[in-house]
């Protein structure tokens, strides 16, 4: 899986061919990562993966790494990528949902707004953060933050890392479905540049609520899916233990998401996964977000909003019309 340090000329030409294929797939430039020197090797890794679709084992490995208890969470990245960060709290109605962290901070000498799921590291914090599963109140806080970003022209970052929306009575009664919808709607409408990255579990509606961005990135070992493998197995196989089989079937891994045009770029992780080296993972993530932001900030706000809509408009695969 690891790239050669110095790819041969033939390999380079193959890379260019594949890079072209990738670029055409999304009609978007590939993410650079940090430093021009590393580009080719990083690209190589992405492309190796795409040449050979990940095996069931590899997909499952992503599921495991995405859920790894030591995986860096939103606040681990905030700490490393932001020079200053002021958290914005509360939905102004009922509570401050700790499963979603919102705030503004200084990133690369400029102010940005951030919304991100936060799972919590120890037992106590995990409970407090509800395992990263937001309530409607959390989406409402996120909406408030998006509107603040819009008012002040701050680019918006979102870091997605949730098993999904919380399936509880109060969450339902407070209008979970509606607030996931309205959070997406707010992301369509705001004028500022938006970059989302799936950094762990991109679980269903809870994830997509904050992922309707100009650029959507995905870490190498993150997963992004409509349902958990266990949930899918329980429904389609009527057997929860078939989770690995389910994951292989619905392909939540980054490479498949890239190939399906769901994400714009894959953000490389340190060998073995982001949990092995938080600093390195943060550095590449920061560089990737910076690159993505540079691409979209050149565009006029109205046009950017149109392009954002157009991007999601094309998602889905239809059968070729019979002729």
């Amino acid at each position, binding site marked *: 899986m690891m790239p050669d340090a110095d790819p041969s000329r033939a390999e380079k030409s193959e890379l260019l061919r594949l890079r072209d294929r990738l670029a055409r797939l999304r009609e978007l430039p590939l993410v650079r990562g940090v430093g021009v020197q590393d580009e080719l090797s990083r690209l190589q890794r992405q492309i190796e993966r795409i040449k050979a679709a990940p095996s069931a084992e590899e997909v499952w490995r992503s599921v495991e790494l995405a859920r790894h208890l030591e995986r860096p969470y939103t606040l681990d990245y905030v700490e490393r990528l932001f020079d200053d960060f002021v958290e914005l709290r509360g939905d102004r109605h009922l509570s401050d949902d700790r499963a979603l962290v919102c705030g503004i901070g200084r990133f690369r000498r400029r102010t940005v707004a951030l919304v991100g799921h936060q799972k919590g590291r120890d037992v106590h914090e995990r409970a407090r953060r509800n*395992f990263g*599963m937001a309530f409607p109140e959390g989406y409402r806080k996120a909406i408030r933050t998006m509107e603040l970003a819009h008012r002040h022209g701050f680019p918006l970052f979102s870091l997605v890392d949730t*098993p*999904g*929306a919380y*399936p*509880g*009575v109060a*969450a*339902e*009664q407070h*209008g*979970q*479905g*509606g607030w*996931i*919808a*309205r959070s*997406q*709607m707010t992301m*369509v*409408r705001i004028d500022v540049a938006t970059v989302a990255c799936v950094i762990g579990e991109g*679980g*269903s*509606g*809870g*994830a*997509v609520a904050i*992922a*309707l961005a100009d650029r959507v990135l995905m870490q190498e070992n993150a997963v*992004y*899916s*409509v*349902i*958990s493998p*266990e*949930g*899918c197995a329980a*429904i*389609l*196989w009527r057997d929860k233990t078939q989770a690995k089989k389910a994951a292989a*079937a*619905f*392909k*939540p891994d980054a490479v*498949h*998401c890239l190939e*399906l045009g*769901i994400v714009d770029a894959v953000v490389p992780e340190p060998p073995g996964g982001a949990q092995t080296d938080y600093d390195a993972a943060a550095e590449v993530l920061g560089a990737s977000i910076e690159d993505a932001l540079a691409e979209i900030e050149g565009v006029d706000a109205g046009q950017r909003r149109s392009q954002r*809509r157009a991007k*999601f*408009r094309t*998602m*889905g*695969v*239809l*059968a*070729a*019309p*019979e002729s």
Partner: protein
Amino acid sequence: MSRRIDVSVEDRGSPGDSGGGRVVGRGHPNTCPGCSSHFRDDELEATLRVCPQCGHHFPVRARDRIRQLVDGGTFSELDADVRSADPLNFFDLRSYRDRLAEAEVETGLGDAIITGSAKIERRPCEVAVMDFAFMGGSMGSVVGEKFARACERAAERQLPLVCVTASGGARMQEGILSLMQMPKTVCAVDVLRDSSCALFVVLTHPTTAGVLASFASLGDVTISEPGALLAFTGPRVVQQTVPGEKLPDDFGRAESNLRLGHVDAIVERGDLRTFIGRLLALFAKTEAP
């Protein structure tokens, strides 16, 4: 790990565990789950599939719904030939292709939504009606695409869109692509908004998960049929998550949604056409015809 389950398709049954439509039923679809009366098809047709004994609203298929709602002879279907591909080569106990083919044969539909142009109470509009009988009304690429095209047509023609939902959620067999129909349809509603065109949503039993969490919750006016289950996560999964917690009797039902502030009105099926006609008149951009 049970907390992690984020189910997308759950409640495939109608209230009281009857089938999801006339085609894919468990138990006899014409036996009323409210009062156990049994009816002939023609009896139910005559009452718009509402139980004359207890008022229970039986599921309505999309074509029947359109017949009930729109002025006779005004509906012209569009995009009828759009079909799903199988980009993931999805295979669970059967292949997605087989399931699609079977659903098409069973329902006579290309997918879980019918769209087109029509008039309701003499006012032109676009309509999009979902059909729960087609794979539980699940939203895949086709539902998203046809809904988006309906929004775009409405915006272009400066007409309101009337949308009747019935959905168990996302089409799991399309994996992440089915999830992306949520932002896709939200973007489509934004196109409507930018054109100041109204969206009227009629939520019918059941409307859950990804559909509830996208376009179904973004109407200018949101109506529900009585007794409909409207929940992002249905009662069974909620019960699994916190096994000790007692669910309210009307958990997720239209009536509790009205009480909790999530819908504007519960309208009985017999009044639906008139009600939508009033909305079309109120939101009309020109004087009455």
